[in-house]
């Protein structure tokens, strides 16, 4: 199955020289393997990096941004080795997965400082910060301390720091995690817009439908290995055979559950006792996700947080990688 998918990678983009290239790269953390003999070539455009938790996505991004040194093999980005080549970072942007900031700063100060760190001058950095704030729709909240931001605002400001210096290659590690449906839509639009201007964007996620929303070109990782690389349509057929589990947090979960079960594509709703969230099972995730935006906007059933409880993806990976 995986061979079939690999046989048609990146339709229409095969002739491009790679912007990001991994040549037989392995990365060990002591006895634990993070990446296992990975060979990968990514041309310009938006590519989705898909894999369940622990599949090596973050390791791949940390290797590509020069934070980690490969144990074996060679990583090249824009034809440079990223490890100990800080000049390359002038062209790269990273939105890291961890929800960490210099909490005492305001959003604007954080971006100005990131611009200065990226090599922009004292006059250019505030202007670049302003542009980045507009890009992620955070201008109104820019002068509030980050520690008071909601999860969605923190994700936006994290994305803004990645683009503040106008990079050529953008690495986004789970950029949509924990965002509300409206923020999710806006961030997806921002990523698509960024990729449509000739940049290279690599978006990691463990949620298939997040990746599908931004690109048709995907790379599948599991347990540190490349499972498949190719067009999104070939993998979605496999994934849609398995019920997709989505976790929703809302101050009115029972009303939300009652609203959701009216739709045919919802095959189950489960109430979680530990955090008061509900887990919804659907066989048509596209329709479900598009409906969430309307639900969040109409105000009757507010939604604070959405994320995929993606055991279904793990099942597909197990199918793709025979043991």
């Amino acid at each position, binding site marked *: 199955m995986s061979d079939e998918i690999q046989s048609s990678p990146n339709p229409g983009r095969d002739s491009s020289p790679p912007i990001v290239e991994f040549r037989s790269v392995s990365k060990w953390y002591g006895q634990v393997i993070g990446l296992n003999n990975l060979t990968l070539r990514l041309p310009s455009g938006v590519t989705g990096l898909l894999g369940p938790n622990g599949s090596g996505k973050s*390791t791949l991004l940390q290797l590509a941004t020069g934070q*980690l040194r490969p144990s074996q093999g060679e990583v090249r980005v824009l034809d440079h080795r990223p490890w100990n080549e800080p000049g*390359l970072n002038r062209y790269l942007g990273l939105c890291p997965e961890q*929800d*960490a900031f210099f909490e005492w700063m305001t959003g604007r100060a954080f971006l100005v400082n990131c611009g*200065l*760190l990226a090599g922009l001058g*004292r006059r250019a950095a505030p202007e670049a910060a302003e542009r980045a704030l507009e890009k992620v729709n955070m201008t109104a909240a820019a002068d509030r301390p980050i520690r008071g931001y909601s999860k969605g605002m923190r994700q936006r400001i994290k994305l803004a720091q990645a683009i503040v210096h106008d990079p050529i290659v953008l690495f986004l590690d789970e950029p949509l995690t924990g965002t509300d449906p409206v923020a999710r839509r806006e961030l997806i639009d921002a990523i698509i817009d960024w990729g449509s201007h*000739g940049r290279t964007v690599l978006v990691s996620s*463990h949620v298939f439908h997040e990746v599908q929303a931004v690109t048709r070109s995907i790379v599948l990782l599991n347990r540190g290995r490349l499972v498949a690389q190719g067009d999104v349509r070939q993998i979605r057929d496999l994934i849609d055979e398995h019920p997709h589990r989505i976790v929703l947090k809302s101050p009115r979960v029972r009303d939300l559950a009652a609203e959701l079960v009216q739709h045919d594509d919802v095959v189950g709703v489960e109430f979680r006792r530990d955090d008061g969230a509900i887990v919804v099972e659907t066989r048509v995730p596209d329709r479900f996700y598009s409906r969430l935006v309307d639900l969040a906007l109409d105000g009757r059933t507010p939604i604070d947080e959405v994320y995929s409880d993606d055991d279904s993806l793990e099942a597909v990976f197990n199918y793709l990688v025979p043991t």
Partner: protein
Amino acid sequence: MTTAPIPDLTSPSTPVPGTTAPIAGAVPRPLPLPLPLALGLSALFTVVKITVTRQNRGIRLLILAVLFAMPILLAILIRRYQVNYHAPPVENALIFGLLFPVLVPLAALLLASGMVQDDIEEQTLTYLLIRPIRRWAIYLAKLFGTIVSSWVRASIFTVATLVAIHWGDERLLGVILRERAVIALGLLALALSAYSAMFGWLSLWVRRSLVVGAIYIVIVEGLFGSIPFMVREATVIYYIRVLAVRWLDLPGADWSIELDRAVSASTCVIVLASIAVAFAALGSLTFRTREFRVKTPEGN
């Protein structure tokens, strides 16, 4: 500013790096792209600024303020209750018996051990490592920020202690603040540079650097530094005491320092500066080659 211009990929007339599928008829630009030197002054100053700001926040600031307030409080109490109060021995005891051998290394340990570790624990180191700044320069900027931060703080409390000791003395605004205080601040700079460089390097190698550093302060600086034998020449405090005796006319007998047999002042300065430079170089080399893996929420 040493930065290479970023190609405008949105302009039809600008080549798109690394692609053979040009945008709007652009001519492809060959890879690899030229890389900047990655030593921009604004970037390095920003690292210093972030380091100083971080170190002047939270519980650490409170602990240091309480520690450094002790000599001031003691000076006030001694003045209040001592019959026939005489300032010089009090200055000797509080500044050179408490502040320099105990509080200064403790302050350096508290700040230097956290200058990288705090960024690791709070997962903010990523924001520095993904920038076009050489890693050794990031470390040196953080160390510089730490030394400046600790020196300013220690200087304020040292001057305040001197004022508390000599309050009412007609020489306070003259020889005490203009000469003795200035020399004391110079000694603080030397001591804090040496200690901060040592403890900064230590924190890159030892997980419990606060504990190991505290043991070092007690045993090496406290015990060995007071033994009138060659071993004390391997401590920072010995050179600080020799300088204090030479420059401030303190009684060397208190520390068994005989000026005609002790090392010269210039040797003391060179040794202390060399300790600072050597450990700063070791720390920056370690920081340059070390992988700082960020544990992500997925915990791979």
